[in-house]
Structure formats: structure tokens, C-alpha cells
């Protein structure tokens, strides 16, 4: 599903040049659950953003579903992204001015889904994330765990084939973290490919494969076959 070839990402600011990714070669298949681990600043988020088409690589190739996409325009990337990819962030990134329902509905609006269909699907997703009773609340009225469940609902609402999660449990206590991991695992079992950045070994345990990054390089790839 995803293939990278000699992926390089260099950030240039006024004074410094940071090589965030250096010759990253990866292949991730449909249905996989991959965890990316590594010390802070080693390029995990950068890699996730590039895979998620939020950012362009400086050099190298990126293949997504058989298309070579690294040179796509912003418009093309947005179109590809909204059909195929859902995001979950450490800091939830819900819009404060919108209710839970409206936050989850947002991707469907940009996909021009009809009103009744949107309503049905949002309610379904909220049921599934066990947060339907909070549909009319605003994000700030919810606990962290609840907010992250809303964020996951928003990520899955468009039935994406791929979910990218950047430290989804980083801001949660262990009970809430556990619940979020259960949801992700369940989604993976239903066929969604998941790539997750994490610092937590126990969260990483849920994955099929762990990719270790260090200073922009892939150092190890641990294949583990779950029973």
C-alpha cells in the first residue's frame, strides 16, 4: 500500500539545515498495523506527515496505492487524503468552536456527502466510539480520553483505508490510553491499515511490526506475527 524509496526530508530555516529523514525505505502493506518508535526528534512525525500527504519529501519516492505521489500538487494530495487517510493526533486537534457532532461531521462536509447521510454516519461513528451522548458538547467540556475518541471517530468517518496516529495515547492516562488502543486494534482487525507513532512499548506490542527510527534513519524493523 505504501512504499518509500530513499526518502529524504530536509528542513531549512534561516540558520540551520535539519535532515529529519535520511534515505528512508519502507514498505507497508494493506491491513498492517505498524508502530514507529524512536527518540524525540528522530523524524517520526515528519515521516508520518509525509506518508499522510501533509508534507512533501525533499527527495525520494513515495508510492501510495500504486500511485507515485511525491510530486502531487496540494490539491491532488488533499483529494487523495480525504478519501483514504484518517488522522489521530496526540493533542486531539478538535476545533473548539464546533460541537462533537460537527467535528466528526467535518470530513464528510468536504466530501460533499448529503445531510441525512452525514447524520447517519456521524451518529454511527459516535455510537461506536461510545461517545454519542456527548454529541452536542464542545471539546473543552470533555475529558482527554473522550476527546481522543471523538478524534478517532472523525478519523474513521470517511472509512479511510489508512489511519495515521501520532502518539495517540501521549496525553492520556493508562485507562484511557488502553481504551484508545482497543479501538485502534479493532479498526485494524476490520481491515484498516494503521501506522502509529508511539513511545510506549506496551502500545507498540499491539502492532504487527515495529520500525525503529534513529536520527532520520530506519535502524531496525521488527516483524512480529501476532497470534
Amino acid at each position, binding site marked *: 500500500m505504501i512504499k518509500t524509496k530513499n526518502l529524504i526530508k530536509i528542513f531549512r530555516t534561516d540558520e540551520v539545515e535539519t535532515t529529519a529523514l535520511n534515505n528512508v525505505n519502507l514498505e507497508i502493506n494493506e491491513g498492517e498495523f505498524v508502530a514507529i518508535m524512536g527518540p524525540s526528534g528522530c523524524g517520526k512525525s515528519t515521516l508520518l506527515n509525509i506518508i*499522510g500527504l*501533509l*508534507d512533501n519529501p525533499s527527495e525520494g519516492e513515495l508510492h501510495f496505492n500504486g500511485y507515485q505521489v511525491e510530486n502531487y500538487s496540494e490539491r491532488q494530495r*488533499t483529494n487523495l487524503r480525504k478519501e483514504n487517510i484518517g488522522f489521530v493526533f*496526540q493533542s486531539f486537534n478538535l476545533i*473548539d468552536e464546533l460541537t462533537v457532532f460537527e467535528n466528526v*461531521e*467535518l470530513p464528510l462536509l*468536504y466530501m460533499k456527502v448529503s445531510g441525512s447521510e452525514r447524520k447517519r454516519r456521524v451518529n454511527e461513528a459516535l455510537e461506536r466510539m461510545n461517545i454519542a451522548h456527548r454529541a452536542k458538547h464542545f471539546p473543552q467540556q470533555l475529558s482527554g480520553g473522550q476527546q481522543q475518541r471523538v478524534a478517532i471517530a472523525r478519523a474513521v468517518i470517511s472509512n479511510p483505508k489508512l489511519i495515521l496516529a501520532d502518539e495517540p495515547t501521549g496525553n492520556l492516562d493508562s485507562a484511557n490510553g488502553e481504551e484508545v488502543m482497543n479501538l485502534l486494534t479493532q479498526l485494524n482487525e476490520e481491515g484498516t491499515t494503521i501506522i502509529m507513532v508511539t513511545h510506549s512499548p506496551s502500545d507498540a506490542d499491539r502492532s504487527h511490526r515495529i520500525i525503529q527510527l534513529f536520527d532520520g534513519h530506519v535502524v531496525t524493523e521488527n516483524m512480529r506475527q501476532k497470534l
Partner: protein
Amino acid sequence: MLKNFLITIIRNFNRNKFYTVLNVTGLSVGLICAILIVLFIQEELSYDKYNVKHKRIVRLASDFTLNGKRDRVATSPMPFGPTFKQEFPEVEEFVRVQGSGRQQFRYGEKEFYEERISYVDSSVFRVFSYKLLQGDPDKALSEPYSIVLNQTLAKKYFGDEDPLGKVLIVGEDRSFTVTGVMEDIPGNSHFRFRGFYSMKTLEALRGSEEFNSTEPITFWSFSNYTFLLLKENSRVEAIKEKFPLYYEKYMKALGDQLGIDYTLVVQKLADIHLKSDLQWDAPTGNIKYIFILSAIAFFILSIAGINYMNMATARSTKRAREVGVRKVVGAHRDTLIRQFLMESLSLTFLALAIAIIVVELILPFFNSLVDKDLALSISETPEILVFSVLLALILGIVSGSYPAFYLSSFHPAVILKGSTIKGKAGGMLRKLLVISQFTVSAIMISGTIIVGIQLNYMNNKDMGFSKEDVLVSIVRDSLMRTRIEPLKDELRKNPNINTVATSNTLIGFDGSKTVHLYEGEEGMEQYALNFSVIDFDYLDMMQMKMMQGRKFDRNIASDTSSAFIVNQAAARKFNWNENAVGKKLQLGVELEGEEDDDGIMKGEVVGVVADFHYRPLRENIEPINFLVSEHERFRRVMYVKLNQDNREETIKYIEKVWNEFSPKMAFNYFFLDERLRENYDSEVRLTWIFSIFSLLSILIASLGLFGLSSFIAEQRTKELGVRKVLGASVSQLVYLLTKEFVKLIIIANIIAIPIAYWAMNVWLNDFSYRIQISWWIFLLTIIVSLAIGICTVAWQSFRAASADPVNAIKYE
């Protein structure tokens, strides 16, 4: 999608009430100014256009040069109307208009002085769109001694009675029969007639032969206004093109003899109000003010728009996350741009709604300031409302597009990392915007100060004659005019009356001018000289200073027949300089073939009076000649110099004496200094307009600064906390926050100075007597704008600086 946009917009407004209120207020005030100005301009541009045939109506005016002195007057000779109709196939109708000044009207017990009623030809109703409510437009003015009144006057004199056929006594004893009542003429007319006497009356008074005379001399007295209605499809230019032939036929012979260069001026009716700058015209508008006001409206709207841009971009950090999330979940950039534009548009339209309501509320006040009758309503001024909507649309799009492009350009990968983007990107631009706002404000402030000083200068300048405590009365009673000396004696019996004098013209206003012969190097030379006929007490009463020779003297019999007193300007003009006394002067010239030398006076200069301003200060002091006479013809204006004491009683006394001398004509008076001030009405109005709009522009700019400073204070809360913990005092922190703005305001003022200096000099150049723009005006402007700016910023800064540092450091 639209619903989602609106929800976000409304919730955003709600969350940020403070900024929303600031923004909406700024935009509303900007739109209020713009709407008021547009209303004003639209009315100025609409003058006389309600006349259905206005495109075919022209006024004939005269531009003539006599002895090197050029005069451009709005009037033309009496025979122009009929002879133009004869000679030019393009002319369909003509209307002559002859003013008659203030006249007393009497009906039964009711007795008032009325003005703006003129003698007109009966064609007036076929040419102009004045609507007769009663009477027959074809016949109403076809007989002598007919009068048509407007509704207001008809109501005033006849109440609920039927005015038709009623007899009004005009002046002392002239009876006019009311033959029609017309609708009041709209305010946007260059002539605001309140009624018409039939032109036939003048014909009856003067005799048909004299009235209709086309003797050459009749073409050289520019005594009335002439309007022509041209036939459909004829060109206005044709009249000018064919005029030389006409001139040859009727005017050239005598014109050459008099040494006059004559040019016909043909003005389109609708151009008169704004584009005419002739003498003896009705008070006109000024196209310059239209430009000034348009510029002001534009600048004020820009300030309001800039506020919006400033606050929207300043708050971008707060909006960044929303932008990022929307992009991640699939929003294209153009969708976001549309969203932000809708946001600015909904704000501007909210502001527009408020502005329209406020304009409705303050229009009466504004009207009284600018002396207009403006109205804003869907039925009467739909175009203004449409224009306002358009204006709001443009304002919303222009001020919304920068924030829209800026905000929508955020990179989601960067934003969502959690690291906040710094508001740096907009920093430079924001500074430029604040500078431009305060530049405009500074120009407005210094403009207001300069207009105010010039006005004050004109009101207080030594006019060269005493204008204070002078009561003026116009003597219309012919019997009374023959008994002025006994009247003066009677008045002087009152201890509070100092001097009484008369003249034929009102000083500071009207004058007469005629050809004179003066003693030059090589015999007598011609010059068109102003003159005024005064009595023996006039120079004393006016406290005019003699520079050479003597005043007129009652005891010198020849003074009334052969003595002149000229002003210094005349002595200079004629090269007499210090030796004017004894020089020969002659009023009027003998014409070939004229037997009698009526109206000619030969004599010598007996004195030179110091220059004085007998015209408004816009104009230079020109040569003038005084002659003295106690003939009733010249005793039209009576001046009474009063003491400061018991003013009311003294006036009552004058009225009592007046009524003894003139039982028929009611006592009327005004004070000279007050009337002279009316000369500067348009400057007063400009001062008001300037003050109001500069005040508002400053208000809007301050709102913006207030918003910006509170935002910055908020953004720097943590920094301030740390500094405070490290020992900074509140005043040091306030200084830290305020310093930046002070710098911007000073830069703005420096930019404003040359612009204001240039613009105000252009305006001042219209005045022969003007102030110089001195440096302290700009210093004052800097102080005022700094004071306003610092007050605005300091409050927020102080709040931020005095906050508890512990909270500030925790703040994240």
C-alpha cells in the same frame, strides 16, 4: 457546508466578543461616515437635475474685460432673452430672472420681510419643472402684478383660505394678486425661489418701450439672469459658435467704443451648482469639496478595513489550529478562503445594518450641520442603499482577503505539531497598517486645526473698519429715506447710540462698479472702479483711518458735487501714491451721441482712506471710490453704532423711533459682525465636516490600536510574567509595550506632515488673506495623536503589566 461556515463564524464571534465588538464598531463607524458622505455628494451632484428638461437648459453669463480688469458674472443683459430667441433657431424658450431683494409682504395683519422672490417670464413653468398646485401655468404670470407663491408662503399668509385671487401688498404699496401656488422648490436647486412676480410687472413699471428696448446701451447692463431652453437635438455649443455674428449685430459698436472685451459664457443648468464660480451667482457648491469628501470617505473606510485585517491576522495563531484541522480532514485552500471571506462579509454586513440605523438616527443633526435636507430611505434613495451594500461588499472582500489568504496558507504539518506559529509573518505588515491609519488621522487632525485657524483668522481679522456693535437696517420706505437726517437726530438722543450713518451698499457684501476716468500720466485714463455713496457720518462711524487729506465735510458745499475719497489701493493703482489729494477723478463717461451727462460726476480727490476689506477675505482689496450724498436714492443702508450697555432697550428705542418715521414698513435689523460671519458659512461647514470626520477617523484607528495592543499584551503575558519575576516594575513593562506604538505613531506623523502641508496650502491659496501653516500645528498634531495612541495602548498594557506573574508564567 454553508451552515457549518455560519456556525463557525457565529461561534467565533461569540468566543471573541471583545474583538468582534471592536471590529464591528470600527466597520460601522467607517460605513456611517461613508454613507453620510455619499449622501452629501449625491445630493450635491443632483442639483437642478430634477428639471425634466435640464439637459436642454442653459444659462447665459458674461465674461468681460474692461481696462484690463476682468469680471465674470452670472448675469446677462435684459435683451438677450428675446433677441436670442429671434436670432438662434436652436432656442425654444427663454426665461429672464430678475431678483428683487428683501421685500415686505403684507396681508391683513400679517407683515413679514420675504426674500428669494424674483421677477420671471411666464415661460418659467414650461422650461423648469416647477409644479403649480393651484392656478394655470400658462396664465399665472402673464399679467402685470401677478404673484405665484410657494406652498410655505401661501400657508404663512393665507392659512386655510384659498390663496387664489387674494391681494398681497409688497413693499410700501404695490398690490399683487396671487395667481398660483407652487410646490416648494427642492433644496437641490441652485436658485431656491419661494415665489415669482410676473415679468410683466417690470414692463408695466418701466413702460413697454424702455423695457423692451434693444438700444445698444441696454446690452451693456448685466442686470438679470437669462435661461434658455434649447430645442430637442440642438447642440449647446451651437450658441457659442454662432455668437460672434450676434455680437457683431447688437453689441460690437458700443463695446468697441467702451473698450470692452466680451465673451459669452454658456452654462448647462446642471453644471451651475458645482462648476460655476461667477460673481453675482446664487451660493454654489464647490467641486473641490466633493473631491476632499470622497478622499475622506475612502480613507476612513480604509482605516476601518485595516483594523479588520490587523486584528484578523494578529489573532491568526488562535485560528491556525482550525485551519490545520480543516486541511487535514480534506479542506482545499479555496474552500478555506471562501470561509474566511464569508466571515469578513458577515461582519461588514452586520456593521452595515448598524450603520444604516445610526445614519437614520443622526441625519437630522448632520443635516443641520451641513445645512442640507438629506434623507436615507428605500423609496427615496434606493441607489444610496444599493451603493452602501456594494460598499460593504467591497469593504468585506478587500479587508477579508488578506487574512483569508494568510490564514489559509498555513501548513497543517507545521501547525498540528503543537508548536504554535509565531505571529511574526504579519508583524511588518501590521506595523505598516498602523502607520497608514495614523497617517490619515494625523492629516485629518492637522487639516481640522488649519481650517479652524483660518476661520478664526477671518472672523477676527481687523477689517479696516469697525464691525462690532453695528446694527444695520435696510431702509425701504421712500418717505423715510427723505427724512434720514431728522431720524438720525432722533436716534442720537439715546445715550447708548453713538453714531448713525447711511450708504447705498452694504459694506462687506454688495457694491457697484462703473467706468471712471482718473488723472494719469498722460491725461485722463479709464478704469472700472468700485464706488459707494456714503453720508457725512459714515467714515466716522466705521472708524476708518484717513491716510491723506480729509474726510467729507458738511460745511463744504462742493463736497456733494465734486469730492472723492479713494482707498490706498486706488491711490496705488492710479500711481498717485502719496500725492493723491487734488488728483482729478470722474465717475462715468460721456458716450458718443448721448446728450445729457446724467450719472456723471467730475471732481477731485480730497482724501485717501486706509485700505479696508469691503469684500470677504477670499478676495483682494480692490480700489474703491467714495462719494458723499444725502440724496434719498443713496440712503438704503442705515448703520447704528451702539454702546455695549442695555442693548435690548436701545433696540426697542430704535424700533420705536423707526415706527414713528415709517408706519408702513416694519423695523428690521441685523448686526454687521454676525452678517459678515455668514460670508464664511461654507468654511464653517467645512470645519464641522473636517472635525466630525477626523474625530471619527481617530476613533476607528484607536479601536484598531486598542484591539491590537490587547492582543499583543495577551500574547506576551508569559514574557511579562518572567520579566516581572526577574524584577521589572509595572511602569517599565508598560513602557516596553507602549514604546513600539509610539514609534509607529511618530513615523505616521512624519509621513503626514508634507501631505497635509501640501493639501492645506492648496486650500488656503483660495484666500487672498490667509494664515501661514506654522510648525506648531504639526507639533500639536503629534501630541494629540500620541496622547490618543498612548491612552489607548497604555490601558491594556497596564492591565497586562500589573497581572500576577505567577498566573502569567503558568499561562500556556
